[in-house]
Structures are given as C-alpha cells and as structure tokens.
C-alpha cells in the first residue's frame, strides 16, 4: 500500500490510465483544430471530437448535438443560469434553486440577483439534505424561468428526487437545469427519463482530465435557447465560442465510455467499501453522526461528524490520508459548512465533520488503514478535548456560558 492515500474523490479523481492512452495522440501527432474544415488535420480533430460527443451523450441518454463543451462544471453552471435568464427575460426573472447547491450555482444566482437580473428562491432541504419536490411546485410562479437543483451533493452525497422535479417542471412549462457534477458517471443519469433540460457535468470528477466539462442543452420538446456568455467564433452551436481542447474532449469521451461500462461493478465495489468504513467507524466511536441520506446517496460518499473534536485537527492527525473537512478554522471564515448547516446540523458538529470520498482506485487495504487511523486520532483528540471531558463529567455543553471571541 502506498502512502498518502487519496480519499478525496469528490474534489477530483485520478485520471484513468486508459483515458490518458486515448488522449496522447491528440497532443503532438493529431494536433488539428476541430474547426478547420479544409484539411486533414482539422478533419481528424473533428472526427475525434464527434466520437467523444457520442460517448458522452450515450452515458446520459442525450443526442450528441445536445452536448456543449465548456471548461468545466463551473462554467456550465454559469452559462446555464446566466444564459437562460438572459434569453427568457421577457417571460420573467424568477429562478428557483436550493440552499445546498455548489457555489458555482449559488454564487451565480447571487450575482444575477445583485445585478437585478433575477429574483431567486432558495429552497430548504430536509435533515438528510434532500429537496422536497412539493416545495419546488409551490415556489413556481408565472414568472419562473428556471429551476436549478443538483443531482447529488458534493459534501454529503445525498441524491435529489430529480425525476419528480423534472416532471413538475415539464408540467408547469418551466426549464429545469441540473448540476450533475458529482453524479454523472457514478449513478445512472437519463436526461429524458429525468426531464432535464440543461445539465452541467465535468470530466475530472469521473476519472477524466481537468479543464473540460459540458452543458447538456435540450434540442427538442422543448428546444432550449440561451445567450452565449462569451463572444467569438460561434463554436458549439453559437453557445460557447472558443477553440475546442481536442485532447481533453477525447479524454472526457473515453472517461464516459469507461464509466458506462464499469458503473455496475464500480458501484458494487464502492458501496461495499463505503459501508465497511461506515459500519466500523460508527460502531467503534461513540457520538459519531452520519451527515446525508442513509441510503439515497453516492456510492463512494461518507460524511461523519465526530462530537468534541475539530475537523481540521482530525485531518492534521491523518496526514497520510487525503480527506476533506466541513470546517474552516481561519480567522476569515469561522463559518463551518453551509451545506451541513442547511441540514440543521449544529455549528459545533459541523465543525467536527469529515468527508470521505472513495473512488475507482481505492482498495480494501486502504479502507482498513483509514478505519484504524480514524479510531486512533478521534480517541486521541477526544482525550485532549475539554468538551469531551466536560461531557463525560455530565456537563450539558449547551448550558455553558462560553466566552465567545
């Protein structure tokens, strides 16, 4: 087993070597511009791009013409929200989204709000982080232009009832954008069955390269239109100008093909390893709390709060395991994760959370090592924690007058 171990597969994933193999010819040998229509270099590049487009479209049950390449999911989210609200401004300016979206959606919504281009409804989530479709229905007005709800949350892995929301959107004639960054390639996604009109996703979360993503834009029933956010050569059906990064797109396509082929085996393996990690930690450490939905969540996701210990110190105590914490202990942001706060997790427990993200290349040996390390460090830090000591003495921590600073 090699250290450090990478257990932060929600942040990014290592590229599959098979993806790299597919990409390599497109750097030096086949370097053409896919928009060059008059020579063999361009044709070769275009052919490769169109194959990738098909591979990507197939994974989400779309038509290849509905795939618009971008630099990544952040750009896709920006393009979807800004592009649609600008295009349909005559109809209205109302946008519905949820409070646990990624910041690429939330900050875009806030920016539209600040510029007076949108009025935004931020829907709450339940204690597992799930959006209630009835809330979506109730929020829709005749001025609603777009609903944007994520497929799976990046911190807690909770999977939203997208199909139900898609149905409501269709019924009410409102466009539906889904930020599916964490879900595509991990769980089955079908834009037809789910009633999705626009969908953001990116290659590097599914064992592809960084720097390329896509926005799915529905072509019929309805035909979605949007205003491009970048002027230029009119690439990608005029929705996103800029020379296509052919090697990255080839890698993206290959990554999608592999995810489609291996989804069943990946899911079975990851779920088994994740459950092993979850069971061992939750059984071995008192007062550890699962954040997210107990069953409806991404196969590789596990987010736990360990009472009485602070997240950043937990990470520091497990230096040879790459993990992420919902706590940011800096003077600038003493605020812990807004996602956990939206579930109603107390601030102190939000400060104590760790996100484990398992991926295709993790092994059982790594999981066992992680279990051992987590038990050791949580026990050690609790010994060091005045809060744990007080709780053991029977002090109700909520009744204490803290000298807040």
């Amino acid at each position, binding site marked *: 087993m090699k250290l450090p171990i990478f257990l932060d597969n929600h942040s990014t994933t290592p590229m599959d070597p098979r993806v790299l193999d597919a990409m390599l010819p497109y750097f030096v040998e086949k370097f053409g511009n896919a928009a060059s229509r008059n020579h063999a270099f361009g044709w070769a590049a275009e052919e490769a791009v169109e194959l990738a487009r098909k591979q990507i479209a197939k994974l989400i049950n779309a038509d290849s013409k509905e795939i618009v390449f971008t630099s990544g999911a952040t750009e896709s989210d920006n393009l979807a929200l800004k592009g649609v609200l600008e295009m349909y401004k005559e109809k209205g300016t109302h946008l519905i989204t949820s409070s646990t979206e990624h910041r690429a959606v939330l900050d875009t919504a806030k920016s539209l709000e600040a510029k007076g281009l949108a009025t935004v409804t931020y829907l709450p989530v339940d204690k597992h982080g799930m959006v209630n479709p009835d809330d979506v229905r109730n929020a829709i007005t005749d001025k609603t232009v777009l609903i944007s709800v994520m497929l799976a949350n990046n911190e807690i892995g909770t999977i939203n009832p997208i199909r139900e929301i898609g149905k409501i959107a269709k019924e009410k004639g409102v466009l539906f954008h889904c930020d599916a960054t964490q879900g595509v390639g991990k769980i089955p996604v079908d834009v037809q069955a789910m009633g999705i009109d626009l969908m953001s996703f990116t290659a590097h979360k599914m064992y592809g390269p960084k720097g390329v993503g896509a926005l799915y834009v529905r072509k019929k029933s309805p035909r979605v239109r949007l205003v491009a956010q970048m002027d230029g050569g009119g690439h990608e059906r005029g929705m996103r100008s800029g020379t296509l990064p052919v090697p990255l797109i080839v890698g993206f396509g290959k990554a999608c093909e592999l995810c489609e082929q291996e989804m069943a085996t990946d899911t079975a393996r990851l779920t088994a390893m994740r459950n092993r990690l979850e069971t061992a930690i939750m059984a071995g450490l008192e007062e550890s709390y699962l954040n997210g939905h107990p069953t409806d969540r991404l196969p590789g996701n596990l987010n736990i709060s360990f009472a*009485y*210990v*602070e997240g*950043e*110190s937990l990470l*520091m*105590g497990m230096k040879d395991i790459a993990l992420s914490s919902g*706590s940011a*202990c*800096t*003077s*600038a942001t*003493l605020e*812990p994760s807004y996602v956990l706060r939206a579930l109603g997790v107390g*601030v*102190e427990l939000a*400060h104590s959370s760790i996100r484990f993200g398992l991926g295709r290349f993790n092994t059982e040996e790594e999981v066992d090592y992680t279990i051992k390390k987590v038990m050791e460090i949580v026990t050690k830090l609790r*010994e*060091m*924690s*005045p*809060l*744990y*000591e007080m709780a053991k003495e029977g002090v109700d*921590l909520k009744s204490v007058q*803290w*000298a*807040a*600073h």
Partner: protein
Amino acid sequence: MAYSDKVVDHFNNPRNMGSFKKDEDGVGTGMVGAPECGDVMKLQIKVQDDMIVDAKFKTFGCGSAIASSSLATEWLKGKTIEEAQKIKNTDIVQELNLPPVKIHCSVLAEDAIKAALADYQKKADKPEAAR
C-alpha cells in the same frame, strides 16, 4: 495549508496535556473560546509561593490552537505570576510561525493564560469562597 514544524511537533507530542482538579489548592483555570467558533481552550496553572510550578491544557480546535496552548503551558512553567502576565500572543505567533489566518489561535492562548491567572488570583484573594 502547510503547518510549521513546531506546530506539527506540538500537535503530535502535546506538552502537559491533561487536567488538574479545579478546586485543588493553588490551581487557576481559564476556559476561553466557544464550540460554535470551532475552538475552546482550557488552561490550568498550579501555583506555589507565587511561582507557577505546573501547567496543563486541553484544547478543542485546529492544530494551531492545540500547538498554541501546548506551547503556553511550556512557557508558563517556572514563571512567576508577574512574568506570566507578560506572555503576548505575538510571542506565540513568532515561536510557532503561525500564518495570518491562525493568529486568532495565539490570541485565544493569551486569553486563556490571562483567564487562568485571574482565576488563581480570585481564589487566592478569597480562599474560603473557592472551596
């Protein structure tokens, strides 16, 4: 964020981690911070003849908070009450090479020292009331 070697050392090998009984003679206890802010420090001193003969800490917080309190206990031992009053958060920042975002950890440690000293003084002034 990369931690300095000294922070890592204090985190891995905390000095004087533990507790005294709060009502023990000559013990002063300072507890500062709040769980909602992500850090709570408990710092205790044991004083004999105006001299801090022992010190202990327990901290809930990030690595820099743990290191700051661990270092504080080391510095307190062997100091007189008056000398201990002079420990500044900037000394801790310098010793541990804390980055700007972690300066509040050192401020908290200074507050904890002051609180422990004040608690000791209060008990020393009114020995009966402390029992």
